[in-house]
């Protein structure tokens, strides 16, 4: 450990205003200044990395034999590293990087989930506001929301006669239920106090919707949106496997048909990471939008 420099360390006669100034300006080294941040970073990143390494090691040991049914991590790397290293290459209509495929899938999710958000919030507000709408519609929602995404696919294929809108419809119908139900709960839970304030101020329906209802129910609405976006990402992969075309889901199906198991593992990682980012993105937007709404 080095002793900190002090004035007394300077030979006599050398000490003057300039040196004084230099001492005052001396900044702590970056490593010390950001010590807490650096520590927090390692505390957050080391445990998952260690766990990951352990999992890969176990996997490698389990699948190392030449007769193993599944590829080991090293084999995946040697067979499919182009997919990891070049997510955005493009060589033909079906020969492109996984980045492009994920983006295509995301576009479908964006459209389907976008429609589901708007329709879900409006329907949820309606259901939450009205006793009779709750009694009439809630049981139907509760039954329909348990239908698995793929069960809707044949019906939507029959209705739309095209794979693209069918996939989008499956996203829509999968993700709308949690949005409706959570919005309705949020509206029903608007504290009586806020309703009293609105009554004393004589807010009209539209003002009430924008100034009280939406901000008050926002935490619930965003919970619904977060569940919804997770479900739509689940559904798109399954739907694409069946509808074909470009997309991460179809890529997996295609890889399975041509026995490229390593490619499937890489695709799984892409799907997982993308789903994680989607979830965090909605959560982040929610935390911005509901700032203050919880504090009371």
């Amino acid at each position, binding site marked *: 450990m080095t002793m900190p420099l002090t004035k007394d360390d300077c030979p006599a006669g050398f000490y003057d205003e300039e040196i004084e100034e230099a001492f005052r300006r001396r900044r702590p080294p970056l490593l010390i200044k950001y010590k807490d941040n650096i520590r927090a970073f390692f505390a957050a990143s080391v445990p998952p990395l260690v766990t990951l390494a352990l999992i890969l090691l176990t996997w490698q040991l389990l699948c190392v034999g030449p007769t193993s049914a599944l590829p080991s991590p090293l084999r995946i790397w040697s067979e499919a590293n182009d997919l990891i290293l070049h997510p955005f290459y493009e060589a033909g209509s079906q020969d492109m990087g996984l980045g492009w495929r994920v983006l295509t899938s995301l576009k479908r999710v964006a459209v389907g989930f976008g429609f589901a958000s708007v329709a879900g919030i409006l329907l949820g507000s309606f259901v939450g506001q009205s006793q009779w709408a709750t009694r009439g519609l809630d049981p139907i929602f509760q039954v329909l929301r348990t239908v698995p995404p793929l069960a809707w696919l044949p019906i939507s294929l029959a209705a739309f006669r095209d794979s693209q809108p069918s996939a989008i419809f499956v996203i829509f119908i999968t993700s709308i239920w949690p949005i409706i139900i959570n919005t309705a709960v949020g509206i029903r839970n608007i504290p009586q*106090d*806020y309703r*009293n*304030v609105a*009554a*004393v*101020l*004589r*807010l009209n329906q539209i*003002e009430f919707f924008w*100034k*009280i209802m939406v*901000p*008050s129910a*926002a935490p619930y609405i965003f919970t619904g949106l977060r569940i919804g976006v997770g479900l739509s990402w689940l559904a798109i992969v399954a739907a694409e496997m069946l509808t074909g075309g470009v997309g991460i889901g179809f890529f997996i199906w295609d890889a399975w048909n041509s026995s490229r198991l390593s490619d499937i593992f890489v695709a799984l990682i892409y799907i997982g990471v993308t789903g994680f980012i989607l979830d965090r993105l909605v959560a982040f937007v929610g935390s911005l939008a*509901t*700032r*203050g*709404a*919880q*504090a*009371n």
Partner: protein
Amino acid sequence: MSSYLSIENVDMVFARGANVTKVLDNVCLRVEKGQFVSIIGHSGCGKSTLLNIVAGLVKATSGGVLLEDREVNAPGPDRAVVFQNHSLLPWLSAYENVRLAVDKVFGKTMTRARRHEWTMHNLELVQMAHAKDKRPGEISGGMKQRVGIARALAMQPKVLLLDEPFGALDALTRAHLQDVVMRLQERLGNTVMMITHDVDEAVLLSDRIVMMTNGPQATIGETLDVPLKRPRDRIALATDAAYLECRRRVLQFLYERHRYVEAA
């Protein structure tokens, strides 16, 4: 003779199935302009229900409320309420909370700049201008209640309704806010109706104290005029004979003649 605010033969019955409870029985009360009236009673005596009826948030089963000889039966900014738990909208800053009321009440009669001034003026009245950009979650309970008072005052109500406004505050903050309300009422001459269960608060602030009997079928048991000159000072009053006599009368009513009985 007609009064500024008169509560005429108000009955309130809550019915849940076959279970019928008469909460208020034939309540009559007249409040003159500029008067500060407190309603005091044990919990469960229906005093908050009475205030909600005046506010229009609850409809009386029979009887009615007249304000300047006009019947009022729906809530409105002419009877602004300061709620017990402040009821500020937590996603709006202190300024925005008051501004929402100002925009709604004076949106058609004031220019935008004038509304901003009026909002700031009311925040200054309660000494909250410095925290105007803070959200309710970031300020103390007393400060929240001050913003609540500013919001109510900003509506320029004909009657200011205070529903146990200091009930949720600690004793020191409560005393401070009582002084704030007393000062403002003396300065602005508001007509105020306050619900409380604090005897000292009632005597200190009121021109008249309305004492309610125990529920069910609660009604006004007695009213007491408080003959203390304004401005009042809580320290000087602590030894004032008239103050102590008023206090004794209220205590006697509450603890001797209408003692609180556990709900059977």
